[in-house]
């Protein structure tokens, strides 16, 4: 869920014509004092964090002067609220509140429609209020093609006992609230409290807005970095992974870091699931064997080999994991050899030293398992491939056995490497990377295996060297499916002349950081 901070949400409301208290976002005590001076009246300072009940946790202070504001800001910036540090504070004019209301919008899956809720009692403890006084909470389904009209808002609000001018004011605000919610693809939105000030104006005193992950692309103005269900800001590795997801829509890719740092002494796995249901079942199986998971990663929905490759590279950027476990439903519709090739390229490059259990049951599983067993038999870590007849429980047991046999060796993160580019290289762009062929080497090649390997038939021989048989443009647009077959064939059966460069933005720097830490740790041990 792409959550917005209060100050961001209020900006949207304001653009939509809903009054919000005047205020400014600051990130230092000095700026806070300055903001209070500009406002020139008593202010409230509110920590901008994704946590409920900020007030009790010291996240809200009042200040009557710039000096007080400075002091309050200093205090707020020093604390952690629900484990989160505070980076920004919203400094706002203090509103003289006469009464508090609640307004919220959610999506009801049974009716397949938005529902607007309104309560004449707002503020903290709204859920409690709703339970105790159901008569004071009214709800209405919204017809999305018509929108939520003012008269509908009026009919909703009057059910809670509000009347007169306040009713008219609130109705106007609520109708606008729906417009903003729809415009910004709200997964949920609420104004709590929505207040009536003593001057008779209605203000959204606090606001909470969650943008639908799948619609984030429509709102670049919101500057959302990672559109995901996090109850915390995304980690650095998650941000890197999200770029992969965003830039390649072939299949699903989802990466969630479960442990910020993996303890060397613990039995932790890198986890690569496929599909929500199958992944959950597989997770249950490894947790039952006493493992912890460093991450949750899902590559499914017929992902390209290159996407699975990138997933593996990201998973293997976590130090100290003891094994790599991949498992999905067991009977996947996707062509599993793509996953097998992605994993093969990644493991080979890494010189993987920890064991891997890969349950790739589904279409072409025999071919997938064969790829794994043929090409990965010589890397230091033991790799076992399984299919639909092998249960997740059995595979989890194998994982445990292999890790024990491997003496609980921890994974060491290595620097990202790529072969140097020589002048002889023939290269072309693929949808998300580049294929480089060192044609010098091809002169010694008898089989020309790459041509056969490419089932897309986009390679041909020209003077005994492989070149594109189609236009560069078509190749980049998707005729090359990044199946990785050409590279794998050439690497293992021929001259190791092809390298497919699949960049992952930011991973090189990330790994360097991890490696520095890793070295420090081992120095200390010495």
């Amino acid at each position: 869920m792409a959550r917005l901070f209060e100050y961001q949400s209020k900006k949207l409301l304001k653009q939509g014509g809903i009054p919000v208290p005047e205020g400014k976002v600051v990130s230092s005590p000095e700026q806070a004092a300055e903001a209070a001076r500009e406002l020139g009246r008593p202010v409230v300072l509110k920590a901008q964090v994704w946590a409920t009940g900020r007030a009790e946790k010291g996240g809200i202070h009042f200040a009557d002067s710039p000096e007080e504001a400075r002091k309050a800001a200093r205090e707020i910036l020093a604390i952690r609220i629900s484990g989160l540090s505070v980076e920004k504070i919203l400094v706002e004019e203090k509103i003289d509140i006469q009464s508090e209301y609640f307004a919220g919008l959610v999506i009801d899956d049974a009716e397949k429609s938005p529902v607007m809720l309104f309560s004449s009692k707002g503020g903290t403890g709204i859920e409690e209020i709703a339970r105790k006084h159901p008569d004071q909470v009214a709800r209405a389904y919204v017809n999305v093609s018509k929108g939520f009209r003012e008269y509908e808002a009026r009919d909703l609000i009057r059910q809670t006992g509000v009347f007169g001018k306040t009713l008219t004011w609130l109705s106007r605000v609520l109708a606008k609230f729906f417009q903003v919610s729809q415009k910004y693809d709200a997964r949920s939105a609420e104004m709590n409290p929505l207040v009536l000030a003593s001057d008779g104006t209605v203000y959204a005193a606090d606001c909470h807005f969650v943008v639908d992950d799948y619609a984030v692309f429509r709102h670049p103005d919101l500057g959302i970095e990672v559109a995901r269900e996090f109850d915390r800001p995304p980690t650095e590795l998650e941000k890197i992974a999200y770029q992969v997801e965003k830039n390649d829509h072939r299949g699903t890719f989802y990466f969630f870091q479960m442990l910020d740092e993996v303890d060397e002494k613990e039995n932790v796995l890198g986890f690569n699931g496929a599909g929500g249901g199958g992944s959950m079942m597989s997770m249950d199986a490894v947790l039952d064997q006493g493992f912890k998971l460093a991450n949750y990663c899902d590559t499914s929905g017929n992902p390209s080999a290159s996407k699975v490759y990138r997933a593996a590279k990201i998973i293997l950027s976590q130090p100290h994991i003891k094994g790599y476990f991949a498992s999905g439903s067991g009977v996947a519709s996707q062509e599993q050899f793509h996953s097998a090739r992605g994993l093969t390229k990644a493991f080979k490059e890494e010189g993987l030293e920890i064991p891997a259990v890969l349950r790739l049951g589904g279409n072409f599983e025999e071919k997938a398992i064969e790829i794994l067993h043929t090409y990965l038999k010589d890397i230091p870590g033991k790799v076992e491939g399984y299919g639909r007849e092998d249960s997740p429980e059995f595979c989890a047991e194998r994982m445990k056995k292999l890790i024990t046999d491997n003496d609980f060796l921890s994974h060491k993160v290595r620097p990202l490497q790529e072969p140097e580019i020589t002048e002889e290289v023939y290269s072309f762009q693929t949808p998300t990377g580049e294929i480089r062929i060192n044609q010098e080497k091809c002169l010694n090649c008898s089989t020309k295996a790459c041509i056969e390997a490419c089932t897309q038939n986009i390679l041909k021989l020209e003077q005994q060297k492989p070149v594109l048989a189609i236009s560069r443009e078509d190749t980049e647009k998707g005729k090359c499916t990044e199946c990785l077959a050409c590279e794998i064939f050439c690497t293992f059966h021929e001259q190791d002349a092809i390298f497919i460069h699949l960049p992952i933005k930011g991973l090189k720097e990330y790994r360097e950081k991890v490696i520095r830490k890793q070295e420090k740790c081992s120095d200390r041990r010495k």
Partner: protein
Amino acid sequence: MSILVNEQSKVLIQGITGREGMVRTRLMKDYGTQVTAGVTPGKGGQDVYGVPVYDSVKQAVEECGELDISVVFVPAFLVKEAALEAIDAGVRLAVLIPDRVPIHDVLEISRFSKQEQARFVGPNTLGLVSPGKAVLGMIGGRAKSAREWFSPGSIGVSSRSGGMTSAISYYLTKAGLGQSTIIHVGGDAVVGLSHPEVLQLFEEDPQTQLMVIFGEIGTSQEERVADLVSEGRIQKPVVAYIGGKAAKSGTRFSHAGAIVEGSRGSHESKVRLLKQAGVHVVDAVADIPKKAGQLLKEKGNKQ
């Protein structure tokens, strides 16, 4: 009989010239689905595996006659447009394959399909298959596997997980239990046909004797199934597995969400309500074929 699709359904593919569209057209045709026409704007006049491509759904209908079903393979952000176009042209069932369709788009599709009395499956669905008759979407992956994994019979399967849809059906087949129709209702929070709606169709289908559902935490689908069974609107036996026991209970979006949903959505709530209603809830996926076989046998004895 089976539900929603059979060997006579005339099927349209939207986005037929794309990567997935092409590959899955082949799967559907090879399996025996009557793929009658395809649409990709700007590519009218071409053909894909012998299926003629048109510029619009309306044009496809003009040339090929009425089309029953459309399977949509366009990019996520174009799904709304494609679904509305299909329904507007008289298609009665749209199957929306793509993942990551914005939820407000789904709400609009839902509104329009209700108004036009059409139905849709998905988004984020692998599709559905009536074994031995026709397949829609990408379930099975290729015709050979689909034939091997799914067999005709009397069990209706409805699942919220794509992979588990195939897995459950495969294990049923292996146990000698065939299926009437297998449907992946889609993984998103709001989907077209959800478990309760699918089960009501199975209830009316003479071929279906028993239903299996794979549920998950979140949404109110399983609770609504429990309601239907309690009210006697579903009388055929139902076997259920609910995934996500280890996971945290469904994500809460807000206070408003909590007010609307109450305790609904959690693993515990779903299992409890289903059991109370008389649904056979099993603890492991592997127990499904056993339970289903046993229930069918009992049913057979009674008759």
